[in-house]
């Protein structure tokens, strides 16, 4: 396994190089000129040139790329061009609120989806199964924005169960007061597609020969489902969770904007709008690295879930 992990880590280097090149060329060709935004309402070409010089965007491309590579390996992306705040500080202070929302969303959504999926898979073809699938299809066809707008209005304003928006310095207060509504709405949105997907994983396993054999041997249905079917269906579920895991660190822009959560999602969109390249660079590179590590972790976990898996 060690050799496998080392080989995978080694493969990350060219992938990271590709990410760096892609970000760099995208920003320089598609991204706007940050100096235009920073220069204010009235500015002359000399001022624009001065700002470009200060930001280093007047340097040759090869030099800017070299600086970028250095930043990636020193983990020092400097300061935000728009606010002058240290990029590392931006990431550290914004990731907390994002994780406060997104970790419970991922955990609860996965648990609920697995439980409901195994239940509806067990009663596949029944009226209950069909009704739940119709509900899921309907729920999936409604935009996330609608959930947020209606949920905020109904649960926050009409029922008054939660504050309409806000965030505080106290983690406890955030967890108890401000986070529940956005978490609830995110789960509501995410549950339907996950449930459908996981149901299909379970159905595929239920139709396998080993399940028929287990039943023929007289194993109780509960044991067949929870021990054999669940365990085998966990591999694609794990893959799916692994795919979604990096997004946990990026947050949901819509949730953060609507509920005034000072998270990374909002920060990233603002950085893009302001052409704040240091923030964009840092987030994109860290996200790419995170994705690669999560993929590796998921691959290693396959072995734990299914001993038949071997590392080659």
């Amino acid at each position, binding site marked *: 396994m060690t050799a496998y992990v080392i080989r995978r880590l080694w493969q990350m280097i060219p992938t990271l190089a590709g990410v760096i090149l892609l970000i760099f060329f995208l920003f320089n060709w598609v991204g706007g000129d940050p100096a235009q935004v920073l220069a204010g309402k009235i500015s002359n070409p000399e001022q624009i040139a001065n700002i470009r010089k200060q930001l280093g965007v007047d340097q040759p491309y090869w030099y800017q790329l070299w600086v970028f590579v250095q930043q990636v390996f020193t983990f020092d992306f400097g300061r935000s061009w728009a606010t002058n705040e240290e990029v590392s500080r931006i990431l550290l202070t914004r990731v907390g609120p994002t994780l406060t929302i997104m970790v419970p969303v991922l955990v609860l959504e996965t648990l609920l989806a697995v439980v409901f999926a195994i239940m509806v898979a067990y009663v596949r073809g029944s009226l209950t199964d069909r009704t739940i699938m119709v509900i899921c299809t309907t729920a999936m066809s409604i935009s996330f924005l609608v959930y947020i707008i209606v949920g905020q209005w109904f649960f926050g304003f009409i029922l008054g169960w939660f504050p309409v928006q*806000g965030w505080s310095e106290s983690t406890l207060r955030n967890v108890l007061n401000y986070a529940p509504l956005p978490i609830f709405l995110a789960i509501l949105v995410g549950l339907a597609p996950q449930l459908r997907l996981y149901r299909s994983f379970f159905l595929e396993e239920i139709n396998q020969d080993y399940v028929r054999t287990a039943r023929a041997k007289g194993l109780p249905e509960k044991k067949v489902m929870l021990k054999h079917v669940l365990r085998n269906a966990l591999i694609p579920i794990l893959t799916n969770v692994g795919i979604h895991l990096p997004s946990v660190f990026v947050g949901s822009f819509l949730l953060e904007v609507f509920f005034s959560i000072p998270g990374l999602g909002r920060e990233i969109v603002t950085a893009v709008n302001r052409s704040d390249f240091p923030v964009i660079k840092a987030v994109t590179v860290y996200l790419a690295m995170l994705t690669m590590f999560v993929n590796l972790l998921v691959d290693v976990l396959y072995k734990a879930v299914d001993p038949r898996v071997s590392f080659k």
Partner: protein
Amino acid sequence: MKRPAVLLAACLAWAIAAASPAGAAVERKVLRMAFRTAEAGFDPQRVDDRYSVGVCENLYEPLLTYDYLARPVRLVPLVAESVPAPEEGGTRYTFRLRPGILFADDPAFKGNRRELTAHDVDFAIKRFRDPANRSPYAWLFESKIAGLDALAEAARRTGRFDYDARVPGIEVRDRYTVSFKLLEPDYNFLYVMAMPNVVPVAREVIEAYADDTNAHPVGTGPFVLKEWVRRSKIVLERNPLHRGYELDARWADPADAWDRAALEALRGKRLPLLDRVEIDPIEDEQPRFLAFLNREHDLLDEMPFAFIHQALPNGKLAPALARQGVRVFREEQPEVTYDVFNLNDTASGRPNPVGGYAPARVALRRAMVLGYDRDREIAVLRKGQAVAAQTPVPPGVVGYDAAFRTAAQDHDPARAKALLDLFGYVDRDGDGWREQPDGSPLLVEYKYNAGSQENRQLAELWSKSMADVGIRLEAMAVQFVDLLKDKKVGKFVLAGSAWIADYPDAQNFLQLLYGPNAGQSNESGFRLAAYDSLYRRALALPDGPERNALYREMSRLMLAWAPFRLGVHRIFSHLQYPWVKGYKKHPILYTNFKYLDVDLVAQKAAAQ
């Protein structure tokens, strides 16, 4: 026997202490509200967004400010002893600071009280021109003060701004006196010195927090920054070292209900009255509106347009809000929206169909202005919350002429078509679209900000309006930063824009068409000798009928040559619960915290 007696005495002492006023917890007056955009920071010389500057208004104090109640606006001294009279033909202004004004406490002062001096003013003005600061308001002091440009140029060459260098145009005469010598007469200089960015700052504070001056604002203002979670929460608290203000009632209008209410609430009291202000930047409209309805906020500045029909159906406060005693302050902001025609002969390297000053091109621009359905924009897109602009100068600024009316910007498709026909813009090939007089195709490209839903709707309206008069218009969505750049370098044919007053004088708007400003604020590249001459003459004149006549003439030239399609002046509605006292929106100042009060009894009664 002894122990119960001691216990009894202790209980009695506790009960007396608890009942006495000294023992009672003093309730703090807290105002809660939202900003509709997140702030960038609080270094006054480094920020220009409305909300950062709005917070700076409370942390710092300029030399001059505006009277809270006077309309039209009126300059009054703040840290200066008086509003100075222009000297030497409007080229010299001398300010005498009030002695004894203190900066808020900060570790940078090493435990000492720090008095405001003329050197702090000198330092702040120089900061605008320090290239390292990238000040978005550097233009305020560009080609303005004798010797300052040379110092900035030297800094650009050497990479270091010499703050100790003596600038001939900034004369610190003594501890409390500073005199500015301008390169040319400027009768609006006093307005510049009342801007919330143009405030003295302490050099030792700036140097102590050089890495992040945005996060360490230390001024002489009535509030201090107590807590700042960037883009999420801003908390201000009363500055204990502030000397306090009193409301000046001299300029109040007895016929104005807002003035009467403010006087009743504030007269004779030492301001500020609020202990704490809590601001939540909320970018989306729904949570901002719901937070107000939920009483999570005490006032709602700039009511979201999306909910205007719910809050103000038919222009009247909704009964549910009226029952709660909510009040609404309606304000035409000193701003104008407009569309800019590129007047250069080429745009993006191609012939520009709307550029130039030839009669046919002018006719085309005027026809497009007439063809655009502005009434629909106001009624539908802006939900009636705007008035049609008659000149580039908005209400509330000096030089605005309320009587000025023009038909040149009305929606009149018949006139538009007639004008186009007259100058040869007709459909020659029968495809339903007009061609240029020389027979070549006529296609106008309209660039707009892709990130704005409002701009997208305006682009659709442009396309539809032009189709109605036979002009093919192609709307092109571009990123905001690209739009800014394209407008500055002339890579556009037609594009949307807006301007809000930096200071309340028509010159701040009319400079948008001044020839030498082409490539900067003059996005159209309009160069008309007659206009430029009028502009220069107006600059050399103080406020008065003579200058107003020049402003009117400039507006007429603008309407005749049509470098702009004038849009609207937006109307904002500001809502407050009845426990917020002293409210009146000022057209230039962004916030009014130092004049507000919270009636705790009324607030509690409403909560129950």
